[in-house]
């Protein structure tokens, strides 16, 4: 079979390309809402002609990503005046040792009505990040619920989970993991 360029093929390719581009415009369901620049602004589109089939629209290679607004820098963990509440693997129940710590935190908050306490939930490095993120939230909430049961107003408390992202001890053994499965108190 001999390959020669002919107008028939050019017309075919053009008409297919036109159809493809119409179809694509319709399919773009993820739409921008903010002040965004169109993706193709900086790079001219690629062309392609073919003797066999229509090309899908070319994805333009991205320019270097712009820097997002400067965020909150992650600092080392703030030293808390209160001990961490520790947890068993894949568990969120407050243990006996944790109840003692919670009692101290509750006494403090009841005697300082203006104080606000953020409870951070953390996990060890094992397991999937998403699951650990939810587990950390459950740990923090479990501590919050216990503090409320001790008479701390709910409005003085808030929670955030860092999952397994902020280990206290960077080790990879049971001793480190036990320290990292924790609820951490941050006075605000």
């Amino acid at each position: 079979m001999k390959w020669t360029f002919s107008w028939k093929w050019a017309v075919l390719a053009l008409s297919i390309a036109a159809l493809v581009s119409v179809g694509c415009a319709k399919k773009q369901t993820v739409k921008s809402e903010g002040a965004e620049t169109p993706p193709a602004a900086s790079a001219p589109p690629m062309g392609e002609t073919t003797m066999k089939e229509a090309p899908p629209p070319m994805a333009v290679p991205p320019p270097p990503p712009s820097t997002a607004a400067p965020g909150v820098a992650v600092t080392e963990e703030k030293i808390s005046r209160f001990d961490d509440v520790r947890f068993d693997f894949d568990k969120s129940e407050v243990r006996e040792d944790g109840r003692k710590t919670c009692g101290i935190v509750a006494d403090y908050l009841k005697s300082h009505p203006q104080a606000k306490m953020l409870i951070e939930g953390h996990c060890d490095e094992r397991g999937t990040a998403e699951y650990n993120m939810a587990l950390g939230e459950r740990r923090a909430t479990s501590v919050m619920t216990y503090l409320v049961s001790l008479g701390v107003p709910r409005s003085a408390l808030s929670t955030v989970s860092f999952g397994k992202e902020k280990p206290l001890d960077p080790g990879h053994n049971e001793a480190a993991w036990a320290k990292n499965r924790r609820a951490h108190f941050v006075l605000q």
Partner: protein
Amino acid sequence: MKRSIGAAAVAFLLALSLFPSPAFPLLYIDINAPGGKRMPIAVADVVVAPGDPSLSRGIPKILSDDLVLTDLFDLIPPTAHMETVTAEHFSGKPLSFPGWKMIGAEAVVIGKVEVRGDRLSLEMRLYDATQGTLLLGKRYTGTPGQLRSIVHRFANEIVYTFTGVRGVFGTEIAFTARSGKSRGKELYLVGMDGKDLRKVTDNRSFNLFPRWSPDGQWLAYTSFRTGMPVVYLRNVATGAEKEVLRFGGSKAPGGFSPDGVWLYAGVSHAGNSDIYRVRVVGGASERVVDGWGLEVSPSPSPDGRRIAFVSDRGGSPQIYVKTIGVPGETRISAGGSYATSPSWSPTGDRIAYTLRAGGRFIVATVAPDGSGYREVASAPDGDCEDPSFAPDGRSLVYTYRKRGYSALIIISTDGRRQRTLVSGLEDVGSPAWSPGR
């Protein structure tokens, strides 16, 4: 307007009937045949007229590297080539096919490139050397900076020609890694060939759980840059962002519906995580899975009708499948005390997940009805986690971790071939393979 589209469609159909699709190629690679024979292919030096002479070998190198990755081809080394391809071979002069056959080639690729200023045009042809027929011819235009992605596209066409399944060259993997002294986590991108590694976010906070929109233009991810977790959509090309999910406590996007309308995510309320979906435009949300336990990591099926997700309602995290809008959920993981991070194959027939077995994490796949369990990746001295399928469903990327070391590995779904994609970064994880290009 409607009328003109209709007319174009008629023209299109006419064109199709005038030029029927070519006959089934005589050369064909059965990708399902275990240990099948590789196809010997020669990629000739590319004719450069005009342009940087190093392109003559540079372009075949990009193409050959791609083809080698498939494990479907044997590349015949350029030193064995006997015929010098010239511009005349693109204007009627036939190749000397007996010569190519003599060195063992069953297929031959030739190319011609022109670079004028910032315009590049590349013509590539694939011949069946045994029959002397043209199997595929493409002409591309773009900028010199787009050369790699143009060659990846032609490599995808070659794979499609021989297997009927489009290749995945030019696709990318998004993932997270620790960055610098900040101890934060940033999003990164890397080409599926391990090249073009780059940082996407740079805000020294925690940026987690990247997930691709079906058109490959957006990444949904959770960022802590305001101090609290918010899910953003980020345009990969421009860096433009918008908030898409702010309610609830902890939150992690799981995946988009195939039409791109919905983003599925696990969201905590009062410590209890459920599966929600949020309209990408407009932001309206609805709860899809409600349960007493932790429900996280929704992965939509390619037809959009079902999701796989994680729930610990039975006492330990396990994988369940649910049909959207229909009551009831079916557990599909079995035998382990901990099963998480499901990834539904783009081909629809398998779900990969992380399983804790014998004190280690391994990657396994299973059919959506829970049958046909298969172990894919495991290591005696480390953990294999977080699988994400390639768009062709033939391989997946996962995280390998051993004490302080971590890497991203690509493995064929039959577990036979694997290669390291990324190593040397700290605490890599959450790989997500982009849609096809």
